[in-house]
């Protein structure tokens, strides 16, 4: 139960994570939206990057936490870790949606389309589908341990599949037509890099804060259900 003790310790500083996330995001937003210079090619449009990129990073981090938690749950059967995975999935959907929506808005002026069959777009859309499927599967299973085990299996299989999906789509697109843009090897100016870094760290901290709050909430929910169950059985006796 190493992990659950670590989580309990971290949760004592929960509020600080929230405060730090709020501060970093505020400073980052100010620098990104006001003081940083517009992009040479894209102009002011590039400022959506300060939301889009950190959201996408946090979404991927959320799925990584979900994957790690699922593996750990199958190994050690720690219900606290299952709550963490469950929470990470819901927050992952939130960040994935932000990344997809801001990406779509960004794509319209730069690529002149809301949606293109780009590997990153498709991988994120499929990640969203897997996460939604994960939460749906959880709601349909009644037994708590069964729910946790089945959901963990789905998360692991999906996580292993995502890179394969990404590469197969990338391959498929490059055979048909070259990718619209590639961000690889693009140097980024310093006054853009600093707000981006601040926003990234801020979003990671925000994710950590949300994860702790939501884990706590799920724990209380299960506690409540267990108490209700006990009270019901007393009434029936």
């Amino acid at each position: 139960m190493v992990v659950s003790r670590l989580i309990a310790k971290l949760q004592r500083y929960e509020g600080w994570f929230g405060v730090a996330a709020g501060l970093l995001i505020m400073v980052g937003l100010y620098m990104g939206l006001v003081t940083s210079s517009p992009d040479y090619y894209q102009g002011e449009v590039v400022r959506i990057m300060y939301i889009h990129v950190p959201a996408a990073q946090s979404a991927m981090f959320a799925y990584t936490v979900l994957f790690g938690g699922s593996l750990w749950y199958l190994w050690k059967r720690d219900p606290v870790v299952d709550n963490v995975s469950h929470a990470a999935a819901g927050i992952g959907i939130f960040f994935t949606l932000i990344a997809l929506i801001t990406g779509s808005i960004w794509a319209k002026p730069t690529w002149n389309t809301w949606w293109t069959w780009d590997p990153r777009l498709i991988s994120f859309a499929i990640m969203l589908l897997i996460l939604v499927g994960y939460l749906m599967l959880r709601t349909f299973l009644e037994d708590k341990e069964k729910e946790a085990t089945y959901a963990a299996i789905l998360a692991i299989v999906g996580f292993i599949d995502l890179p394969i999906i990404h590469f197969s789509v990338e391959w498929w697109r490059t055979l048909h037509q070259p990718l619209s843009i590639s961000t690889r090897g693009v140097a980024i100016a310093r006054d853009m890099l600093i707000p981006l870094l601040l926003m990234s760290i801020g979003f990671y901290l925000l994710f950590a804060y949300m994860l702790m709050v939501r884990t706590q909430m799920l724990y209380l929910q299960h506690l409540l259900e267990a108490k209700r169950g006990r009270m019901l059985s007393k009434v029936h006796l």
Partner: protein
Amino acid sequence: MHFFNVIRWIAWKDLLSELRSRENISSMFFFALIVILIFSFSFSLDPKTSKELMPGIIWIAFGFTGIIGLGKSFLAEVHNDCMEYFQIVPAPKGAIYLGKFVGNALFMLIVEIILFPMFILFFNLDVLEKIPMILLIFVAATIGLSALGTLFSALTVQIRAREVMFPILLLPLAVPIFIGAVEATRGVFSGDPLPLYLDWIKLLIVFDAIFMVVSFWVFEFILDY
């Protein structure tokens, strides 16, 4: 050789009960036939466009057929209370998975092989010397679909919304199979030289290997509950 005997007997049991009832294969077959017909109506296929759309139509038909067949894979076990026996039987759990998987893959392959002449007929295909390559693509894609499908069938069989949840979980994860199978089929029928589409077949084989191993490993946890 206990391990392989378990695989053989479970696959044999599924085949035998299917041979006696013919429920699964016949429903899969007619469903796929209807899918092909609907597609030819909705695209009003002339010979030129039909050549372009054909690989996609083949794999949509096979994919949907797979969903019909694979989703029911564990239903009979639940109805006859066999899931409990799977839990207590002194056999490796992975072998039980492989047995179900072999049975499912064989069903799908049988349906695909029955359906294939229909495609030759409808789309006026020229196939004779291409048959070994086509068979290889069919086998590689079917193994991948059945590997994931058997696992998800076991995951979803005991929940209320089984018919909805099974495709929702399976289809997003099966994207690489569809891309690989469609591109390889297109390559074969447009008469491309082998090196142009060999990579797609390799993708299918890699996918099969990864998900057979992963499913084999996680199946044990499903049967624990």
